[in-house]
């Protein structure tokens, strides 16, 4: 393993160990997801709307708001004792730091998104059948793009004196492609349509995620430099 990968890995390991010990973010995101599921259940009149038509949208919206809650705090953990400065003064390339933070946040968000899928499936009585695997894949691809954008802009908003209030203003316009492709694809899959029908859109979702990761890796160094 070369130094670059080892640096990425040790940061991912550190973030996940911290999360496992404090359970700070996963607990708030998980609780948010379940409670959102309960509230959404009461906000929908199931006599006029079929749950499988709206479930996908609700799942993605829960992911976005919950993800903003958790992933948006990713640099607060670092800032507590100035640890981010310590990492920045080490020979770690800034893109390695970005990729590592993105990877750790991705693991976190993906766990939550599978929880959301399970909870909403239960609450709305969804039967995914053979499409379950594809939905799990689509959630993963969408979560990757989301996490890359939010990690980059979490670093931006943490550096401003507006803090987290700025984050949604910055990322929501940029997240539109993810919402449209994610919700569109998931709705069709939930309704039992074959994967072939949505494959092009999943590709677009993937391209979006890759572009977000690449842009973040290049631009992150300009955000964290002092």
């Amino acid at each position, binding site marked *: 393993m070369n*130094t670059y990968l080892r640096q990425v890995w*040790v*940061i991912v390991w*550190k973030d996940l160990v911290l999360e496992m010990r404090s359970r700070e973010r996963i607990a708030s995101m998980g609780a948010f997801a379940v409670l959102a599921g309960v509230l959404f259940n009461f906000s929908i009149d199931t006599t006029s709307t079929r749950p499988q038509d709206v479930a996908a949208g609700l799942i993605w919206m829960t992911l976005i708001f919950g993800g903003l809650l958790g992933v948006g705090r990713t640099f607060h953990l670092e800032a507590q004792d100035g*640890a981010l*400065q310590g*990492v920045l003064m080490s*020979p770690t390339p800034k893109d390695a730091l970005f990729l590592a933070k993105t990877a750790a946040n991705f693991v976190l968000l993906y766990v939550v998104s599978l929880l959301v899928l399970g909870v909403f499936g239960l609450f709305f009585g969804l039967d995914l059948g053979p499409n379950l695997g594809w939905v799990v894949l689509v959630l993963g691809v969408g979560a990757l793009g989301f996490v890359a954008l939010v990690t980059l802009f979490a670093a931006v908003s943490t550096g401003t004196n507006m803090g987290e209030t700025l984050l949604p203003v910055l990322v929501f316009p940029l997240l539109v492609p993810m919402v449209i492709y994610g919700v569109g694809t998931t709705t069709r899959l939930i309704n039992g349509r074959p994967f072939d029908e949505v494959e092009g859109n999943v590709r677009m979702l993937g391209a979006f995620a890759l572009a977000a990761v690449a842009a973040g890796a290049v631009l992150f*160094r300009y955000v964290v430099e*002092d």
Partner: protein
Amino acid sequence: MTDGVSPGADTLGVKDVARGSADNGREIVLEANGLRREYGPVVAVDGVDLTMVEGEFLTVFGPNGAGKSSLLGMLGGGMRPTAGTVRVRGQALSFSEHDWQHRIGMLSHRGFLYGRLTVEENLRFYGTLFGLQDLEERLPARLARVGLAERARFEVRQLSHGMRQRLSLARALLHDPDVVLLDEPYTGLDPSAAGVLRSVLGELRDGRRTVVMVTHNLREGLAMATRLAVQVSGRFAWEGPNDGLGREDFERHYHDVVEGRV
């Protein structure tokens, strides 16, 4: 220089000292030229030049807001100067390269530690970031040196402030940097931690490392330094060798410099 400082002291340029030392066969380690840092309309550091050779220990005193931390940030390569350059062993600190960080260690009043990681894990984390290969031998030795060997498996948040600061010292020196930068390291230390810090700093100086410390603490600042500087409004208002000036005398001189009477 017993009663105050000779009038010539402030004209004694750092470069002259450095050149003299370099002639004695000591290599120039840290070099800063025309360092300047602006925050919009505020000028925090205004044209600082500095040349330091092996074994030199510079203490920079100055009131709050004199730009001491910004100066240290730029010397450490973490902060981009508005103008000017910093070189460590002849290599310019560049934002796109990642091979000069091995030469610099930074100890601040903030620990750069993760409270939820254990003592050992914190060092292992930084050691891996620095690409150190011999962590298994290095960690126990370093922990023993700062007196934390039996606390290795404690989470950092369970430690007292003094113990954290000792761990932070071990972290800053883990990769054996040539240049050690200290930002108010004595803030809030208990006597035993201050003792460890003092003895480690003494070793650094005698081990021909180059140390720059910024502090308000006149006593600790004077104890170790071979050179002194007083920074006021971003500039070195006075600098000179530490030639055994008593604390009371230096304190008087310091206030004269800060209030612009010298």
